[in-house]
């Protein structure tokens, strides 16, 4: 690794810190959004004044704001994300228990999106404005507009209930029973992937068209290089960086969209956890889940950013 590369990596790492801190401020601030007295809201309608005071004290709401934040943050970095108001269990444990299920379908969806989206994008870009292109573009437009949980429901209807190829609900541990885990994750991942496929297809097609119609590539054509060779050597290399960025975006979206998918397929993942805890006003859990998910997103984007910086000579010179 050259010194320059080390500097670039270092500067990216440093730039991430304020973003993380601001994110924690936002997560902490969620509690402040509660209209009225959070303790009373949590305690519920029939709570006694004592119970409300007890909750207030337990959550540290009687302390000054900055102190609350500092305490919360201090605990968080040590891995203590407080305990659920409903179950009394540590939040982090619950989150970590459910995270693999969510990550499985998210990653699977991402892989699917790339495997399908990239060829589709290439296909459309190399046959611009032709019938194939029109079909692909229309499919992509549909993919962006369709509610993916509805698609999940339809998939369940056909493939699970109808044909019986896949289980309808639940999840299984990947480490213990991989085949069963995958069969549980297949349909959810498919439903989740539609948005990603559409996005990757569109962006790749657009970026590839731009590259292929550039002056540089046209001269290569004139020199007699075959279409396939041009595509592989110059076209794809140039758009690979765009692809990286889109993948980051798709992952971010997918991680959010699992929420509805988990509801359809009754998957015990982080999505269903956050919905349940939001409905029940179990704020520590809400904050804990969001915290973990944000860290994952920031982490992934950082990796992509680093890859980008190391691979793209132009970005290095920023």
């Amino acid at each position, binding site marked *: 690794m050259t010194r320059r590369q080390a500097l670039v990596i270092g500067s990216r790492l440093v730039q991430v810190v*304020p*973003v*993380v801190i*601001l*994110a924690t*401020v*936002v*997560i902490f601030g*969620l*509690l402040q*959004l*509660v*209209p009225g007295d959070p303790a009373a*809201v949590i305690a519920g309608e029939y709570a006694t004044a004592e119970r409300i005071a007890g909750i207030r004290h337990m959550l540290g709401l009687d302390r000054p704001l900055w102190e609350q934040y500092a305490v919360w943050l201090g605990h968080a970095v040590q891995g203590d994300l407080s305990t659920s108001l409903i179950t009394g269990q540590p939040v982090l444990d619950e989150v970590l228990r459910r995270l693999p299920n969510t990550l499985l379908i998210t990653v699977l969806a991402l892989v699917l999106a790339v495997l399908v989206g990239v060829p589709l994008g290439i296909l459309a870009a190399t046959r*611009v*404005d032709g019938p194939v292109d029109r079909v692909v573009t229309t499919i992509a*437009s*549909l993919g*962006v*507009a*369709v*509610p993916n*949980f*509805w698609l999940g*429901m*339809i998939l*369940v*209807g056909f493939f699970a*209930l109808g044909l019986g190829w896949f289980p309808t609900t639940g999840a299984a541990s990947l480490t213990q029973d991989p085949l069963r885990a995958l069969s549980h994750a297949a349909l959810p991942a498919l439903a989740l992937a539609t948005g990603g496929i559409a996005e990757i297809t569109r962006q790749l*097609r*657009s970026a590839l*068209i*731009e590259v292929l*119609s550039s002056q540089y590539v046209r001269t290569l054509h004139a020199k007699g290089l075959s279409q396939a060779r041009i595509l592989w050597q110059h076209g794809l290399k140039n758009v690979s960086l765009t692809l990286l960025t889109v993948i980051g975006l798709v992952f*971010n*979206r997918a*991680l*959010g*969209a699992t*929420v*509805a998918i988990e*509801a*359809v397929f009754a998957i015990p993942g982080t*999505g269903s956890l*956050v*919905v349940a*805890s*939001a*409905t029940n*006003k179990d*704020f520590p859990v*809400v*904050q804990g*889940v*969001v915290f973990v*998910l*944000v860290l994952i*997103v*920031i982490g992934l*984007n950082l990796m992509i950013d680093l890859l980008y910086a190391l691979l793209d000579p132009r970005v290095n010179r920023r």
Partner: protein
Amino acid sequence: MSAPHRPSAARRFLSWLRSDLRAAVSLAYLLLLFSLSLLANVVAPHSPIAQSMDMLAPPDAAHWLGTDDLGRDVLSRLIHGAPMTLYASILAVGVGSLIGLPVGIMAGYLGGWVDGLTGRVIDALLSFPSIVLAIAVTGALGIGLTNSMIAVGIVFSPGLARLIRVQTIVVKNDLYVDAARTFGMSPLRIVWRHILPNAIQPFIVQVTLLLAAALLAEASLSFLGLGVQPPQPSWGQMLARSYGYMEISPEQMYAPGLAILFTALAFNALGESLRAVLDPTRRRSD
């Protein structure tokens, strides 16, 4: 030395519609939806919340789309869901613009540390998976349609702020802004008269596209029980209910799902058409 006179705005609008089929169809569909929303009480054959003993009935003369698990007419519920949907989308996008537009313009025009800080906050907010953040905010504010759409609007605002900020920076450095400064124009007036009109176009395109995203967000949140509360009908909620009875009467799923799909398609199509017409220098690859 005669140059053609610019046709009126109405003329230009009509000729645009004539040339762009996609835009015309989308606009027609959305206008239809809007009218249905206004006239829901008149058009719907039954009350959306009137229960009957005729549960999960297949489509017939009295109930064109059948009934749901509480004997309510699906078609009427679908029609009454339209105003909810439109209200939700517009609210979310409105909140997003209300927050994002001033913040973005301020960051772009003032530059310096204001811009730096705003950029960091935007980066931080964009690290949150959007629906998750919307759910978290909804949980804090209290579940319900208005609160959840305000949450979605808050989630939209950083993206919009970033967009208008870039445009503001571009326009701010244009020479006619300098000229306005020499006339003694105050910064606020410059923003209003020069920066906003010239920077707003991509913003408008994005807002139209976000209407689709807001619609899908509302559907998801209502599906999860965090949005529209029963007995108010909402397309997302209808989907949730129908899922439970999928084996018995699967056709319940299709009507609300298709309604969501078509409306989202219409918003998207309109946005893409707007993008094409507002920026004629754009390459046809989009």
